[in-house]
């Protein structure tokens, strides 16, 4: 039995659809049930519905053998796992954004509001910029509007949310997508089942 951690929400639904397409069916997942674990019809996979930012923890600690997690979260948390596949889902980018009319003062440390303090620190270090991190957990776009920060580091999909808040992307940091990750110990002992799934997913994605 393979334990698979899925992120709750839109991404998890898309991932479940993928698994369904490669032959693992579990209709209850898409229902309104409040349950958090579901076993598929063939009883070979157990899906665990997990908070997206927690998937890496579940997999690293072996509570799940494999899981699907955004590369933004993996980069931020630095989980020790194998990153086996890019699923090309949940595609977006990590970027520095600010008010459209924002002018940077290079003499002052830059105040950066973000959910991703590690990624932000690393990026600004690479461009040699001194910063002050303001860690927030949501509605990051508010920060520059209220003068809480100069810029934000956040994920951007279509850019609509930024636009609606009079913000724009100033620098792209990196692309983000959902990855299939595996626990390093499970990879040793459940290698065949894991590689079987990887192969089927790869074939499906190619088509």
């Amino acid at each position, binding site marked *: 039995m393979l334990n698979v951690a899925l992120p709750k929400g839109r991404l998890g639904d898309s991932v479940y659809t993928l698994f369904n397409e490669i032959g693992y069916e579990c209709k209850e997942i898409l229902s309104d049930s409040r349950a958090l674990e579901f076993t598929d019809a063939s009883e070979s996979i157990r899906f665990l519905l997990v908070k997206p930012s927690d998937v890496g923890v579940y997999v690293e600690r072996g509570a799940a053998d494999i899981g699907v997690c955004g590369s933004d979260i993996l980069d931020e948390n630095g989980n020790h796992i194998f*990153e086996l596949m890019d699923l090309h889902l949940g595609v977006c980018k990590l970027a520095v954004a600010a008010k459209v009319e924002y002018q940077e003062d290079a003499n002052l440390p830059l105040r950066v509001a973000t959910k991703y303090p590690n990624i932000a620190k690393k990026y600004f270090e690479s461009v040699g910029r001194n910063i002050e991190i303001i860690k927030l957990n949501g509605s990051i776009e508010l920060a520059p509007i209220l003068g809480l920060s100069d810029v934000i580091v956040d994920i951007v999909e279509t850019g609509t949310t930024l636009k609606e808040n009079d913000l724009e992307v100033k620098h792209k940091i990196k692309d983000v997508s959902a990855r299939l990750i595996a626990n*390093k*110990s499970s990879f040793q*002992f459940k290698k065949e089942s894991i590689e079987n799934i990887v192969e089927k997913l790869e074939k499906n994605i190619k088509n």
Partner: protein
Amino acid sequence: MIARYEKLPKKDRVPLQLRSLYEQKGYSKFTMSKFESYDMYYDNKDFLKNDGIITFTDFNGKLMALKPDVTMSIVKSTNKNSGVLKYYYNENVYRAVGNPPEYKEINQMGLELIGGDGIYSEIEVIELALKSLGKISSKNRIVISHMSFINLLLNELGYSNEIRKELVEIIQNKKIFKLDDMEIKEKDKEYIRQLVNISGDYLKGLEKAKKLCFNEKMKNIVCELEEIYEAIKLFDLEDNLYLDFSIINHIEYYNGLIFKGYIDGIPKAILRGGRYDRLMEKFNKNADALGFAIYIGDLERYLKEDIDYDVDAKLIYGDAKSNEIIEAMKVLEENYLSVRAEKVQNDNVKAGIEYILKNGRMEEK
């Protein structure tokens, strides 16, 4: 009743079994003191990966450290005239782990073979690593890798440090898909893919590794790995030996064979080891050095056995006189491994059977 070894809980038996395993091979016990001057560790912090060292000042204002690692202590204690050293140890080390850092006491049990020579030393260490895991569970594996092989391959491909760092990350995390976007030659991408695919079956892995040999040095490493396999076959343990180059460690310390040990059901590697001649060089103690450490702390949860009760028997003595209690306890201790005397009944400690002492007589409850 005399307490017997077999009655010890598994978590206490395993370290004793390991101790006897190492002593049978002529390893002697190394004991270390708990504190050390901090400057020794300052220059080699990377050896501990991202774990921090717990420090304090002594009465003279000198910065001291709670020892974070046994291997470093052993290395420091060797000198040119030491000859061949075969030590095993079972010690607690102290580190600040995680983000934010938490102070942790970590139980390390392992061994070091210093001043060894040639391939037999490596075989002996791997044999002991396999047998160590075997004492814990038959569902175990030792996964072998080799720092030199990886480095020689990367040297041969010859890219900038930045690209090399990315390639190391790809190999370490098996992120082959990342190669697609990289600005390197297609045939080089293929070599990396093949290296990452060496993941599992030892002999099949060796065949793949042979195809990646660009020079004599790499071929020699493959021979070394082959010889280890053939030797381990003589112990009938070759089925637990695997090959996987995703195991990478700091090149400044580890320059050759490295390996990790896994147990089915434990999410992290509980055994880590390898050849660390370079660490010896850093301490100016040039010598062959091999060893491994087992993280017993990570095992405890796994080795916990379900027991129905905490003691075999209880004696509830109420108002009985001391001499009556002592006589009753003597009788019970003849028949039970563990007996607990209590004045009144209490449910915190569960017993297999309870006796009440009343009017000089013992009655089963």
